[in-house]
């Protein structure tokens, strides 16, 4: 086995275990920390896939901004000590069965898909030069629309969070 394959399996196992930990953890703070571990492994997988720019943006946006926001909200609410009310066991069992059935269906559908191998070695698609060219030539309009989305999200968060 070559080095990228070994790295892929290590990162995949860590990400799945920590994702299960996010769902299972009793303490919300532990959930947040395990989710950060999952995001770092996904960033490692992006680097393995030659998407270096996306890996850096992923770490900045998710680990740097979104999860800090989650941690702040959890600490403001002082939830870390209290036990959350649990769903009853029947509902939990039904939820796990539903998720497992979804997994089985997706695997069964995609098992016969006619797919090939990923190209070995590095290419330049994921570098910032290529992505910038694509973003500002082909996707200028969505880029500008997303700035309006951010403006409206900012105003919406302020209006919702304001004490009346």
């Amino acid at each position, binding site marked *: 086995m070559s080095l990228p394959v070994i790295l892929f399996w290590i990162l995949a196992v860590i990400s799945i275990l920590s*994702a299960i930990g996010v769902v299972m953890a009793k303490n919300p703070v532990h959930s947040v920390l395990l989710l950060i571990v999952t995001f770092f492994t996904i960033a490692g997988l*992006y680097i393995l896939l030659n998407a270096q720019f996306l890996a850096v943006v992923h770490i900045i946006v998710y680990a740097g901004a979104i999860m800090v926001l989650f941690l702040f909200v959890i600490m403001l609410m002082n939830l870390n000590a209290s036990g959350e009310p649990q*769903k009853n066991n029947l509902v939990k069992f039904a939820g796990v069965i539903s998720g497992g059935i979804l997994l089985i269906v997706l695997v069964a559908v995609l098992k016969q*898909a006619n797919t090939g191998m990923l190209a070995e070695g590095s290419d330049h*698609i994921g570098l910032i030069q290529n992505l910038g060219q694509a973003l500002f030539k082909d*996707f200028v309009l969505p880029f500008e629309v997303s700035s309006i*989305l951010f403006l409206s*999200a900012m105003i919406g*968060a302020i209006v919702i969070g304001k004490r009346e």
Partner: protein
Amino acid sequence: MPIQNYIWLSIALFCIGVTGVLIRRNAIIVFMCIELMLNAVNLLLVSLSKYHHDASAQIFVFFIMAVAAAEVSVGLAIIVMVYRHTKSVDVNILNRLKN
């Protein structure tokens, strides 16, 4: 490496996220499971981008990240407001939005 490995990993992460949304009652955990599902889709898009040698999928991932950031800011503001009114983040309380 076959691209199938990345597809299985994405499916597994997505299904873990779906299961988390179904079995947890804490609204913040439900939100984090939604983030997990978004990331599974992002991983699939990036691997398909390498498979097809096309940069468009990575631009889509970029936009998904932007929309996720906006969604989280508004959603957490809503959760904070719900907590102020009901002193709880239990999603079962939200079935009566009046009062």
